[in-house]
């Protein structure tokens, strides 16, 4: 199961990297506005998305 998942990530490296990149970039822009409003809950949600993008990048062998 795990091996198959890694194979899928490798086979679809470009798509996965594209999603990972967007997850790193787009929430980073909104983080500024969340911080300006002091919305710490929203900051964690957006940070979660950036973290997810980085985890996706790690999964592509």
């Amino acid at each position, binding site marked *: 199961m795990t091996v198959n998942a890694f194979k899928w990530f490798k086979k679809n490296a470009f798509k996965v990297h594209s999603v*990972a990149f967007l997850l790193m970039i787009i929430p980073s822009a909104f983080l*500024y506005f969340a911080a300006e409003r002091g919305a710490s809950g929203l900051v964690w949600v957006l*940070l979660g998305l950036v973290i997810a993008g980085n985890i996706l990048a790690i999964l592509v062998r």
Partner: protein
Amino acid sequence: MPFFLALFPILIILLLMVGLRWGAARAGGAGYLSALLLAVLYFGADTRLLAYAHTKALLLSLDVLLIIWAAFLLYRVADEAGAIRTIGLALPHLTADRGMQALIIGWVFASFLQGVGGFGVPVAVIAPLLVGLGFAPLQAVVIPSIGHGWAVTFGSLGSSFQALMASSGLPGEVLAPDSALFLGIAAILVGLLVAHAAGGRQAVVRLIAPVFILALGMGLTQYLVAGAKLWNIASFCGGMLGLLIGIPLARRFKGEAEEREALALRAVAIALSGYVILIAITLAVQLVPGIKNFLGQVVIRVEFPELASASGYITPAGPGRNIPIFRHPGAILTYSSTLAYFIYKRAGLYRPKAANRIIKGTVEKVMSSSVSIASMVAMAVIMEHAGMIEILAQGLASSMGRAFPLVAPWIGALGAFMTGSNTNSNVVFGALQVRTAELLNYQAALILAGQTAGASLASVMAPTKIVVGASTAGMAGKEGDVMRQLLAYTGLLVLLISVLTMGSVLLDNNNLWW
């Protein structure tokens, strides 16, 4: 303990890339996550600090990525038209002397290609050309690898230098002269090493005059162009001038004549036209005030408040990286790519659906490096705002003391080796080098010149570049042989930068530290 925890994200990247051979995108993600965790759990970064740090990282990433994307677009526009191949095939017509061929193709043309493209392109294009001319495959990979190293910082249309400015926060006009000077001096040794790789000590002695003439021409051009704030075309202009000087020089070293097809001068001129456009547009945007002001009207500028970590590290309030969107080097490259496309198209150099292939090829090629840049920049900015860079700088300053200028280029070299690029090395270590220089009262521009020159010259040793070069010359599986040869040559070059950095710092401080 804090020093080792602050160092941990950098060690993670080193371990994963060198030890486990992970790519930069994977290792960058791991480095980012470890920096984020440590910043929150140990160094007292709160949500506000992290949020602003991520937006700053976004601006820095875009500043560098706009150039990388557009530089590769221009390269694809030219490559799809066969322009790179045309220029490459024209060069062997100049001389049959093997040493001179190595200099002109493996050094001068490699530097030109690094100026316009980068991303491993010089070795990938030149290694097969040299094999075709009868060079041994090992020589064919080693020669262009050493040959383009001095042109990396101001190459790829300035992306590594842009990263140095972004990560250090210092303006280009402060950083460019020292960086260009160190790399220009290194170019002399690069030329001699290329001659050595081609024909041993005899070739070095025989070709010493052309090496000095070419190095002086290319190095001085890069220095002057970078000094005139045109850092995105400094290396490219150096390579271009090298080609111009190389033609009459090569005729003096003709060697034994071989029968070749007649040189199609018109085809070469059309091939070069795309790059002539780049020079023209860059000069127009930088030197004509009307155009400069008109294109500089729209600027992405974000103000950030003062930020403090729970452990007491304070980042002063101020603007993030300004991006003049229509005057940015990335925009200039995009204008040039568009015009070059129409010239090549009018000359009938494209097959059907070329535009689709150009765009698809560009996006596919840059995506992985975009991910690694985004991760590593975010990692570096988080480390900076959480005070981790400060702790590393204090540790380095106290342990290295006055010998730090000797070490700074090796830090840059290590960064380039482990991350596969001069740009990434500057992103990861730029702020650390500046802070350490400040703590030791050294001029930051000199230390950063050592950082980027060391990284530039050692980036040719990055495993990914070696794999690409070896595969194009039929050396797949023998990358270890290439690395062994490159290690000796690159070690000498970084040692030279180390001595230059130390000497410059001593001259600057006007005292002898021992």
